[in-house]
Structures are given as structure tokens and as C-alpha cells.
């Protein structure tokens, strides 16, 4: 030890001993800490809140507020949880609305046929055709009211295309009374009445075409396409029924009616070819087995006979096997109505599949959201655990033996 070291040791001891033990104040009791636990957890809890805040803000900025999902305009994919998560709720609403539209369309088609018959009969006042027409109007109005109510309840927040189509459908429904007044109060020809009803039906069906808009689920899109095609075919078949009904009621075709009948038949066949392509083999098989039977065949034969009549020729259609009290027109009407009912049964089957799929998509979306939140919770818990661990380690490291 050097001289400096010895001297330093001695001087330090002397300086220290200048402090008299008696002069040192006694140790005061430590102050009781207020809410020590809260203070200890303040930092990690604040950090956790900050993390949650950042994540929430990011999600709001990136995806919009909860409950409002932007329309999914991506093309259909085979499977995609994100796509399903976006379109699940919409798909369920759309499927529900589509069911209401399909029922309304069926009712309107029947009204179209009744209107054509009523007009072809010369608009007789207080007659059976008029009563039938008015009765069918009540049914259509009931279905329209149900559709409008459902649309107002669930139509918000749909993808833009579907929303536009829905508005058009609602407008068309609102214009139905004016069309009925025109049928009853003016001398509009039957073909024109049929065409105007067809236009209304086509507008309603446009909404059903949009059910799949924005959906990322291939199965859902395929089923909706199949339904849409089948509805178009049924619409064409309903036009055939109405045109030939009117023609048979008066015993002859009026100008353009046979051409329109031929066009409707062509459209039906073309759409059914597309249906065979788009739909699954099970759906095609269902259609072929459901829309079949003697009545369907007879209706097809009667239609073929009507189409085969040369322009300007007398309307002669052989009555197929049917109850004796059935006229040719009544037979055609009943058999074609039977055919349409079978087509509608297939549509209902497709709607059920669509509804089930949309429900599945909805649950899948819910599950995706739940999984996302669970992942988020795990991340937050991990961050919190990390923060607590770091805090504790920092605290204990200060106390550790070095």
C-alpha cells in the first residue's frame, strides 16, 4: 500500500468519525404507501391499454368501425376466411330478401297470367276472371308488403350493387298499383300487359341476381347463379302461360303474340341449357326429376302445337288427356301452372341451400371474428406478461447480488 493510500484511508476514517453517532437522527418509520398495488400495476396496465388502443385504432382505420363492413368487391374465390368474414352477414340478409323476392315474383307471375286472361276476355265487369285477378292482386300485395317490410328492416348495409337493385325492386313494387289500374281502366292489349308485368318481374329478379355480389364463397355464388337462371326460365315459362292463356281465351293469337311466345320459349330453353352448365349435377338432376310427368309433357306438346301454327292461322291446339270438364285453355293453364309449381319447388330447394350456405357463412364469419379477437387477446396478454416480467426483472435485478 502506498503512502497516499494509507493517508487516504486514515483521513477518510477521521472524516467519517467526525460524525457522532449520537448526532444521527433516528430513523423515521417509512411512510405507508397509498395503493401500492395500483402503483405497481400502473405501468403495465397503461402499456397494455396503449397497445389495445393502437390495435383498435389500427383496426378502425383499416376496416372501419365494428358493425359496418365495406362491401367486398373481390372476385369469387374457392374459399377464404376473410372473404367469408366480410360477406357472411350480408349473405344472410340477401338470402332472406331473395326468398321474399322469389315468393313475390311467383305471385306476380300468377297475377300476370290472371291479368292476361282478364284482358283477353274483354275486361268483363263483375266476372270470374276479374274476381280471380283481384284475388291474385291481394295475394301479390301481401307478398309485396312482406318484402318491403323485410327490405326496410334488413336492407341497410348491403353491397352497393345489391342495394341499387333492392331500391329498384322497391320502386317497382310501388308502381304495381298503377299497372293494375292501367290493366283495368285502359284498353291496353293483353300482350302489352304481359310485357309490362314481365318488365316488373325482371326488375324484381335483378335483385336476386345480386345476391352473390361481393361474396367470396364459390358455393354460395354457384347456388345463387343456378337460382337466378332457374328464375329466368320460370319467368319465360310464365310468359308462355300468360300469352297462350290469353290467346286460347279468345281463340286466336293477336299481333306479335305468337312471336313473343316463341321468343319466351327460346329464352326458356337457352336459360335451361345455361342452368345445366352452371348448376351442380345434383341440382340438374333435381330439376329434371321434379319438372317432369304427364302434365309437363302435355303442356310442352300444347306449346309446340301453338308455336307450329303458321302466322295468321287459326289457333288449334289438341286437348291432351285431362278431365272432361276442362277446356283446352283450362287444361293448358292447369298443366302449365303445374309445370311452374314444379319449377318453383326446385327454386325453393335452391333457396334453402342458399339460406343454409349463408347461415354457414355467417357462423364462419362469427368464428373468424372470434378467432381474431382471441388472437388479439393472446397477443395483448403476451405483451402484458412481457411488460410485467420486464418490470419485475428490472425491480429484482436492482436487488440481485452483483
Amino acid at each position, binding site marked *: 500500500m*502506498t503512502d*497516499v*493510500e494509507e*493517508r*487516504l*484511508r486514515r*483521513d*477518510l*476514517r*477521521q*472524516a*467519517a*468519525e*467526525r*460524525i457522532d*453517532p449520537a*448526532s*444521527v*437522527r*433516528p*430513523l*423515521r*418509520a*417509512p*411512510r*405507508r*404507501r397509498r395503493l401500492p398495488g395500483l402503483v405497481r400495476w400502473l405501468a403495465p396496465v397503461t402499456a397494455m391499454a396503449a397497445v389495445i388502443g393502437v390495435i383498435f385504432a389500427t383496426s378502425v382505420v383499416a376496416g372501419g368501425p365494428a358493425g359496418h363492413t365495406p362491401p367486398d368487391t373481390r372476385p369469387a374465390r374457392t374459399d377464404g376466411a376473410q372473404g367469408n368474414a366480410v360477406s357472411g352477414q350480408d349473405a344472410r340478409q340477401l338470402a332472406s330478401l331473395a326468398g321474399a323476392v322469389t315468393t313475390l315474383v311467383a305471385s306476380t307471375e300468377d297475377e300476370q297470367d290472371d291479368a292476361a286472361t282478364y284482358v283477353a276476355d274483354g275486361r268483363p265487369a263483375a266476372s270470374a276472371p276479374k274476381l280471380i285477378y283481384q284475388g291474385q292482386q291481394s295475394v301479390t300485395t301481401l307478398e309485396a308488403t312482406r318484402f318491403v317490410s323485410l327490405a326496410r328492416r334488413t336492407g341497410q348495409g348491403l353491397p352497393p350493387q345489391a342495394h341499387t337493385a333492392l331500391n329498384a325492386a322497391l320502386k317497382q313494387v310501388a308502381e304495381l298499383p298503377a299497372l293494375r289500374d292501367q290493366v283495368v281502366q285502359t284498353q291496353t292489349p293483353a300482350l302489352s300487359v304481359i310485357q309490362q308485368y314481365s318488365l316488373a318481374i325482371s326488375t324484381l329478379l335483378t335483385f336476386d341476381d345480386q345476391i352473390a355480389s361481393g361474396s367470396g364463397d364459390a358455393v354460395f355464388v354457384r347456388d345463387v347463379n343456378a337460382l337466378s337462371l332457374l328464375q329466368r326460365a320460370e319467368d319465360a315459362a310464365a310468359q308462355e302461360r300468360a300469352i297462350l292463356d290469353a290467346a286460347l281465351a279468345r281463340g286466336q293469337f293477336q299481333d306479335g303474340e305468337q312471336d313473343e311466345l316463341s321468343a319466351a320459349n327460346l329464352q326458356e330453353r337457352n336459360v335451361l341449357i345455361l342452368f345445366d352448365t352452371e348448376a351442380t349435377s345434383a341440382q340438374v338432376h333435381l330439376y329434371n326429376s321434379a319438372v317432369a310427368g304427364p302434365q309437363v309433357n302435355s303442356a310442352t306438346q300444347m306449346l309446340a302445337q301453338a308455336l307450329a301454327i303458321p302466322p295468321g292461322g287459326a289457333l288449334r291446339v289438341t286437348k291432351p288427356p285431362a278431365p272432361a270438364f276442362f277446356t283446352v285453355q283450362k287444361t293448358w293453364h292447369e298443366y302449365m301452372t303445374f309445370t311452374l309449381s314444379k319449377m318453383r319447388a326446385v327454386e325453393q330447394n335452391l333457396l334453402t341451400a342458399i339460406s343454409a350456405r349463408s347461415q354457414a357463412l355467417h357462423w364462419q364469419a362469427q368464428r373468424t371474428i372470434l378467432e381474431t379477437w382471441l388472437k388479439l387477446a393472446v397477443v395483448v396478454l403476451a405483451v402484458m406478461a412481457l411488460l410485467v416480467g420486464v418490470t*419485475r426483472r428490472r*425491480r*429484482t435485478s*436492482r*436487488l*440481485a*447480488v*452483483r
Partner: protein
Amino acid sequence: MADEAGGHVRAAGDTTAVRSGAALAVADLFREHHLELVRLAALLTGNQATAEDVVQDAFEGLHRGWPGLRRPSSGLAYVRSSVVNGCRAAHRRAAVARRYAPRLAERPEAAGPEAVSAADDRGDLAAALRLLPRRQREVLVLRYYLDLDVAEIAATLRITPSAVRSTSTRGLAALARRLRED
């Protein structure tokens, strides 16, 4: 005083066994090392009152942090580090006070009748020590007052042993120069 102080510590409101054990252990440490640590702080700060406050805060912190202590035997090292850190904080506060209120500031070297320093005590190395940089002063006090070895000083100051050695050498050289100048 030590017993009284230990009683104060035990009376701090702890009821669990761990807390009671902590209070007893802190009381034992206090009894054995309080005066020594006050003197250490006084050598570092130059003021007995400040030194007492620093040591009291250090023991309070030890009492509070005892449950998190990995090894009870590290209590003394912890409180020693706390005292050194507390002295640095006191220096910083005093420096800030001097900077912003020079006339009112209480300089450690002239802190009244309790002042440990003896600036006029020419040849007193303890006084000359206060003119050294803080790190050198801490190392020399820990080494030549508390007789800590290099590893203990390194742990207390959170520096490497080689830094302790070099700092000590430089500090001693500076003191030797000062002695020669005197």
C-alpha cells in the same frame, strides 16, 4: 437507536410472515450498518443531514423491495448501491439548485455546522477527495473507507472491475499530484 429504528420498521404495518421477516432482516442490517452508511454518504455528499436522508431512503427502499430480493444476503449490497445512487441524486439536486438559485443554494461544502468538509483543512485528503470527479471519488471512498474489494465496488457502482481499477489508479494519482502541489 438501532433497536428503536428496528421497532419502527416492524411497526410499519406488516402482518404477514414474509413482511415480518423482511422487517427483522432490515432491522438487523440497519443495526449493523446504519452509522457506517451514514458516514459513507456524508463522505460522498459532504453533508450529514443529506447523508441521513439518503440512508433513510435507502433503508426504506430496501424494506419495500425485500420480498423481491433474490437472496437475503444481498440486502447490504442493495442498500449500499442505493446510498451511492442517493448521493448522486443529492448532488444533482444541489447542482440544479445552484444553477437556478445560486444565492439560495446550499453548497454541500458549506452546509453549516454539520458540514463534514474542511475545505480549509489543507493536506486533508478526505477534503481533497471532493475535488475529484464523482466516479473517482466514489471508487476511492468505497475502497479506502469501506474496504470493499474490486468486485464489490464494481457491483455497487455497476461498472466493470477493470474500470474500478483504472478509476482508482487515476484517482490516487490525482490525489498524489494534489499532495505534491500542497
